[in-house]
């Protein structure tokens, strides 16, 4: 192996792949078989974290950054003057195996620029996965990118070797896509998603009848949207997201704050701050939809097309719906417990277990670990001291914000200063 040449390629092709935020290695059921290498039946593992705090679980690289497309938001776009490189199939296999054996990674996340055409590219991605599974007896995690426009036959084969497949929708709306990636069509993204969804359903139902049916993409599929590049509201983004979860049974939708990489005037200019706070609020909303039983229409709608930046979306919902509170901790059902600001799903679980043995009071709740500075205004428990004052939403918000140390505080006050405003954080 020519390590110097590999190093050079790795630097280029890892750098180009890093804008894909998915690094999940969980949700697969692939156990070690025949004393081979690897096991991805457990929970995902982050082997390290980058200095920007993102999990590194997979070797995330492009097979090549040569590309025939010219999407404005992408570093790999044809018109961009950058160093290009391409891995050979065997080189990716060797890197993956040797990194895996040293416990650096859970597996491989392989994507690619599109060279020649969709099928030609997809074929090579599949060849890497096939080699890993069949020649190296590798049972680690493999995430392959579905190349928009790839044939059904290749997508079927891909799912037999990969644990997860993903197509990045990137731009949340069709008008945005038309503006920033005029050569790409929405149908081309949708087609492989549809195919993968159907195959997953079919393989699952066959496996029920015939035990030996191979597993197909056991960790499901995911997609990603870029935030802040094409002017969509939070509502547009999250309704698109809700649609993908429902329509294609997505395991995850990722949100990636746009990192300016181009002087193209259709896009935020270089030096514009990455919208990390907004990204965080979108993820919180995503969580509320998937784990807390919220409906998207409760959180974002015509009256509230954008999330509040200074408070989390659950608190925001609670302040708009004070008529549901206070909630009685000792009586409420799981759904309502999950809606109390400052109580996460783990605490909900503990509360439900613990209250079978005694009525819970403030001390119990503190010990269980709920966030009192938010929760105290929204619940009653087995205690004689309560928040009894009838406060307005604005008063509550200012009370809570006065006592909470949000990690975004610095960022938020900076932004205010930027606009030269000393306006209070609450409207009353």
């Amino acid at each position, binding site marked *: 192996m020519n390590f110097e040449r590999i190093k050079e390629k790795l630097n280029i092709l890892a*750098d180009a792949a890093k804008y894909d935020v998915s690094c999940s290695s969980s949700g697969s059921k692939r156990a070690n078989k025949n004393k081979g290498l690897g096991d991805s039946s457990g929970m995902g593992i982050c082997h390290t*974290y*980058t200095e920007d*705090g993102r999990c590194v679980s997979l070797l*995330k690289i492009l097979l090549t950054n040569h590309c025939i497309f010219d999407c404005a938001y992408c570093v790999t776009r044809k018109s961009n003057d950058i160093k290009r490189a391409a891995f050979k199939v065997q080189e990716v296999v060797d890197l993956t195996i040797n990194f895996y054996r*040293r*416990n650096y990674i859970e597996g491989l996340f392989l994507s690619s620029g599109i060279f020649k055409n969709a099928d030609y590219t997809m074929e090579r991605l599949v060849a890497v996965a096939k080699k890993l599974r069949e020649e190296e007896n590798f049972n680690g995690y493999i995430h392959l990118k579905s190349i928009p426009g790839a044939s059904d036959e290749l997508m079927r084969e891909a799912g037999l070797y990969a644990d997860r497949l993903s197509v990045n929708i990137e731009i949340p709306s069709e008008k945005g896509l038309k503006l920033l990636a005029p050569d790409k069509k929405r149908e081309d993204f949708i087609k492989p998603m549809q195919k993968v969804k159907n195959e997953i359903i079919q393989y699952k139902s066959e496996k029920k009848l015939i035990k030996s049916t191979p597993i197909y993409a056991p960790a499901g599929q995911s997609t990603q949207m870029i935030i802040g590049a094409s002017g969509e509201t939070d509502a547009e983004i999250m309704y698109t997201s809700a649609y993908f979860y429902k329509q294609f049974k997505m395991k995850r939708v990722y949100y990636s704050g746009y990192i300016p990489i181009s002087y193209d005037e259709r896009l935020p200019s270089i030096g514009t701050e990455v919208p990390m706070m907004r990204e965080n609020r979108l993820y919180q909303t995503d969580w509320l939809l998937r784990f807390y039983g919220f409906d998207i229409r409760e959180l974002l709608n015509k009256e509230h097309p954008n999330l509040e930046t200074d408070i989390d979306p659950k608190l925001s919902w609670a302040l708009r719906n004070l008529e549901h509170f206070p909630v009685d901790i000792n009586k409420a059902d799981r759904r309502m417990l999950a809606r109390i600001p400052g109580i996460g799903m783990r605490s909900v679980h503990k509360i439900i277990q613990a209250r079978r043995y005694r009525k819970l009071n403030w001390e119990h709740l503190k010990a269980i670990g709920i966030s009192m500075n938010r929760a105290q205004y929204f619940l009653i428990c087995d205690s004689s001291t309560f928040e009894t004052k009838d406060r307005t939403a604005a008063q509550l918000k200012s009370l809570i914000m006065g006592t909470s140390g949000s990690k975004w505080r610095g960022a938020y006050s900076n932004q205010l200063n930027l606009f030269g405003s000393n306006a209070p954080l609450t409207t009353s």
Partner: protein
Amino acid sequence: MGMIDQYIYDGTFEGFLSSVFEVYERKPLVVKIVSERIATENFFDEEHIIYTDQVKADRVWKGIQTKIGKKAGDWIYRAFLSEKPDRERVLLRIIKKGFLGHRVTEDYADVDVLRLSNLVKMVGREKHRMDAFVRFKLTKDNVYFAEIEPDFDTLPLNAIHFKNRYADQKWLIYDRCRHYGVYYDLHKISYVKLEISKDINTSEAAPFYFTHDEMHYQDLWKNYFKSTNIPSRKNMRLHLQHVPRRYWKYLSEKQP
């Protein structure tokens, strides 16, 4: 005030279970189970040396598993690995409550259950960290070798994880704090005590122990770690929260 009986055992889990057996056998009024490593002489306590007895330990273990439950057994074992000074006291109370029919993995408002679940969580988190932060280096003897210094004694838990994962390679993980290792020889895992030279990781000595390619792969990994970072999103606070400095020592990507 009456005398407190102090049961001193050898610090092993079997030793602790043997002590629990004696508590039920001898029915002392007030008892303290203490590991010999931290036992101190005390005029008011009456000391009893408890010898580790596999048969007694097995009986208690079986009792825990059948009467209190498999999950409780797992929790008790994990909490024991925390090596916290209050572990014997909390676990004895948990076991007593469990044998009386109390649900010790559910009643989170009970102080002992809460402490137990916190210990389990702490040990679980450290175990998970070790699963992640172990960095194997390929020695010239064709053994993948790693060193760890976990906050708690998690290696027995990690061993199972690595045995399932690296079934086709020989590996050895050595706990530098507790001076023992686990070796997998392609068939089974065994616990080993060995002398490991302190200079094994230093750059001058490394080529003597490790293969030529090993250095290259560490270098590639370090490069990958740098390339995959996005400077405009830099957030060292978050980085340190996930990878506290005390773990850097054995992470190849964090070496200069």
